[in-house]
């Protein structure tokens, strides 16, 4: 019922005339604008998120190349840098201002625009209706708005790169007072205002999107698709949305207070401040630490917002390509749920050295190490899924396996950091950089690549080139470890993060050579990503055509749609679901799609 209503209310594609959807003349009012720009088709919106995310990934990646150049070659000069950065790289040498602006924008953009919008935005949009069996989202209009709010956020963030005083440069976590006081740093002037506006728009986008995802999953499942028959991708995307909806508003409130402190003379975060250039400030009685609580109340769930979609897709892709059911489906759902609940109770592990009450700190230690248990369960279940499988190394599968490897490596160092007594030593060193880049940055990126390679045939009706994909995978996996593994050692030497130059430090200048090595690998790995980019766009137009409905032999519903589904997804009735999504290798059959009714003599497990 509701499924049909959604479509009729908006685009008017009914199943009756959907046979023509491919040719575009089935619905007279579908113009270029409504089809590609202000589209309300969840598939198109998913692609919009993906491509915008890719643009940001390139920009953010390029920024990291630039600041790694500084760390690897602090004493060399690159005249071409002055050509592109102007006054920010006088004499071919990136200035400290520019370095910090690049680091900050890199962090913000990758965390929020690439790995949140680009990842969950893409796949929630693309997969939720297709895998639960719906014609579109609960509210296609809200869905479209969520993309356009993200787009506006992108435009504002981009514009902040070009203001006179530079973009915000106080780190992606934007701690006040530094972020509140333009007099403390040029980056905290106009650049910070724009940063805040962009982030506020982004939060709106996330809330619109998240509510929609939740409503769709809860209300628009096709007949027979009970919650326990949902593919794990959908469970993961569901929990991701729940995390976002509950935690983004808290971040928003933190930003509002910051905006007040910056512009309207309040003292939420400010107290007892004397700035060398302007003297004592009038503010008294605020708490700088309050912001950190508000920020990390989102900040920690945010890392799971980034990770869960990757976990869900890895589960789905590993099971499909191991030709074996995911091991412990209920445990997988349960551990996702545990991660969501505990994810809200660990935020202060980012604040062990802020002067936090030691007793409170100990509670957060307990909760933090507790969250490692569901993480461990997931890893063991993935391993068992591979065990005695019959594995097909599709590009998606390779990236899913890489994801598991990275998640293990980075998750284990979380156990170090979560123990406050060790975190005192390791906090804000390169050890933390290594931890979160491996477990969140690269691992989720791998989840995203896995998803793109796996669902590209559904998105564009063509395959990506596999040889390029294999090259991309192996070089990226090796490169990621070469970049981030040695950083643990830097961290164990106490080397602080966010340093522009280590030359004056007796304890840290010993790592110059290592930094140079890392920077070199960064450049290579960045170039390898261009390979992916090229493959992606080339294949959209020239890739090998998909000729079968179900190229990976997968059980889930999206593969029952036409090769190039129109708006509305299924030309006829939405199929009914009779079983869970993981009947691979059951009773000697390679796979049994969810739409196949349960046979009389089928075995029970």
């Amino acid at each position: 019922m509701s499924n049909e209503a959604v479509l009729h209310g908006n685009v008017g594609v009914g199943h009756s005339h959907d046979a023509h959807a491919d040719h575009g003349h089935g619905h007279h009012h579908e113009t270029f604008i409504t089809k590609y720009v202000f589209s309300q088709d969840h598939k198109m919106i998913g692609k919009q998120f993906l491509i915008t995310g890719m643009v940001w990934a390139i920009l953010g990646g390029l920024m990291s190349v630039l600041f790694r150049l500084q760390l690897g070659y602090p004493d060399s000069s690159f005249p071409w840098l002055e050509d592109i950065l102007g006054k920010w790289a006088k004499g071919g040498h990136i200035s400290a201002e520019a370095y910090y602006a690049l680091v900050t924008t890199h962090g913000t953009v990758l965390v929020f625009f690439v790995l949140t919008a680009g990842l969950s935005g893409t796949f929630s949009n693309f997969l939720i209706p297709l895998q639960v069996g719906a014609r579109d989202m609960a509210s296609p209009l809200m869905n479209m708005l969520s993309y356009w709010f993200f787009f506006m956020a992108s435009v504002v963030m981009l514009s902040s790169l070009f203001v006179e005083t530079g973009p915000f440069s106080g780190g992606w976590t934007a701690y006040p007072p530094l972020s509140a006081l333009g007099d403390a740093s040029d980056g905290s002037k106009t650049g910070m205002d724009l940063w805040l506006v962009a982030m506020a728009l982004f939060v709106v986008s996330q809330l619109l999107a998240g509510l929609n995802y939740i409503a769709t999953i809860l209300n628009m499942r096709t007949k027979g698709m009970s919650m326990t028959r949902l593919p794990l991708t959908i469970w993961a995307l569901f929990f991701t949305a729940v995390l976002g909806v509950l935690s983004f508003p808290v971040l928003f409130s933190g930003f509002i207070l910051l905006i007040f402190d910056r512009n309207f003379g309040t003292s939420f975060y400010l107290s007892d401040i004397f700035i060398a250039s302007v003297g004592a400030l009038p503010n008294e009685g605020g708490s700088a630490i309050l912001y950190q609580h508000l920020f990390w109340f989102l900040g920690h769930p945010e890392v799971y917002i980034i990770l869960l979609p990757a976990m869900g897709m890895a589960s789905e892709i590993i099971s499909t390509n191991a030709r074996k059911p995911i091991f412990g489906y209920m445990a997988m759902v349960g551990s996702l749920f545990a991660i969501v609940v505990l994810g809200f109770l660990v935020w202060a592990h980012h604040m062990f050295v802020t002067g936090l009450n030691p007793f409170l700190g100990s509670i957060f230690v307990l909760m933090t190490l507790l969250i490692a248990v569901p993480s461990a369960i997931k890893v063991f279940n993935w391993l068992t899924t591979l065990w005695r499988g019959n594995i097909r190394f599709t590009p998606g599968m390779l990236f899913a396996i890489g994801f598991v490897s990275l998640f293990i490596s980075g998750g284990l160092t979380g156990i170090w950091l979560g123990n406050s007594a060790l975190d005192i030593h390791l906090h804000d060193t390169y050890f933390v950089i290594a931890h979160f880049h491996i477990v969140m940055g690269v691992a989720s990126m791998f989840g995203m690549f896995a998803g793109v390679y796996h669902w590209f045939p559904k998105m564009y009706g063509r395959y990506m080139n596999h040889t390029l994909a294999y090259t991309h995978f192996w070089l990226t996996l090796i490169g990621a470890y070469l970049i981030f593994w040695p950083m643990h050692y830097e961290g164990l030497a106490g080397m602080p993060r966010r340093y522009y130059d280590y030359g004056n430090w007796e304890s840290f200048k010993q790592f110059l050579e290592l930094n140079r090595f890392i920077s070199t690998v960064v450049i290579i790995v960045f170039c390898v990503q261009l390979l992916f980019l090229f493959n992606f766009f080339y294949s959209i137009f020239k890739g090998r055509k998909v000729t079968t409905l179900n190229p990976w032999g997968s059980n889930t519903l999206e593969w029952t749609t036409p090769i190039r589904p129109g708006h509305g997804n299924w030309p006829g009735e939405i199929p009914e679901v009779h079983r869970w999504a993981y009947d691979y290798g059951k009773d000697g059959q390679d796979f049994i799609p969810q739409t196949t009714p349960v046979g009389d003599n089928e075995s029970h497990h």
Partner: protein
Amino acid sequence: MSMFFTIAVIVLVFLVIFQIAKASEYVSVLKGEEKSRAQANKLNGFFMIAFLVLGLIGVYWCNKLLFHKTLLAREASSIQGERVDSMLWVTLIITGVVFFLTQIALFAFAYKFQENPKRKAFYFPHNNTMELIWTVVPAITLTILVVIGLRNWFFFTSEAPQNALHIEVTGKQFGWIFRYPGHDNNFGKKYFRVIDAASNPLGLIWQDNAGLKLKDDPATHDDIVTEQTVYVVKNRPVQFIINSRDVIHDVGLPEFRMKMDAVPGTPTTMWFTPKFTTKEMKERTGNPDFQYEISCDQMCGNGHYSMKGVVEVVTQEEYDLWLAKQKPSYLSAFPPAEAKPAAAAAPAADSAKTAKATGAAATDKTKI
């Protein structure tokens, strides 16, 4: 020039890879999709095991190259640090074992169970015993780590011992200011509105100020204020009472395995007991330039990377000698000729208040 060259090489490499990729696609059409897929599968399966083996060698090699550069390679310089190090080792061993077992399983399974038309995948959707085991075992292991960790945590955050030296540390963009309580062993009051960057960088209240309703606090008159280098005593606990004058900074002491934020408006504390003098460390490390560096560990602006301080660990005698030579900053601001005799006489009298006052400063630390 070299720039063009680099770009040209990159483009060339791209073209080659692309041509190979195209060609392989044509070949696969000619050979038949199934066959070429099987070949690719074999190749990737082989890469899986190769990656595992080379990766393990890489881990070993990286460790060999870099381990001696880390702080774990030498004894910690504080008694707190010893505990951190032993905890690091326990954690390293536990997570290390899990790391090797799971990574080996992952890549070995991928290799071993690569597609083989003769084999059928094993339908194995769940097994309660196995799942119970790998819930309970990690939970117990983590409990052990939590117990070790919290015992240390409560020790590190406990009150500083009675005989501890108390020193106030204040961060500012971009440097460190230190204050010693002077003869009265008592930190005088300060207020940020009377800060004068040159003569009174901490805003000590050493004058009546009717406008701000402040009364001269005689306890400030013997306070010693220095910048950049702080002197502490070997084998004697030292407590830092940490403040910031502008934005958040962080007193990072990697050699002592200690760290604490400096937050404007909210004082924090940290204490530790140094084990080796700076001179001893020069010998132990064989580095004549060795310093106990204070690194600012919280992003505080564009000069963050240069915000360095130095801890000089000396013996008690050397410390006393050094301290005797320091002049209270009150005396620099108001050279004795001008200073009121009454005020100058005050300090010696109120050493009785000492212990209480510093104790109060110490407990002032934790607001959340």
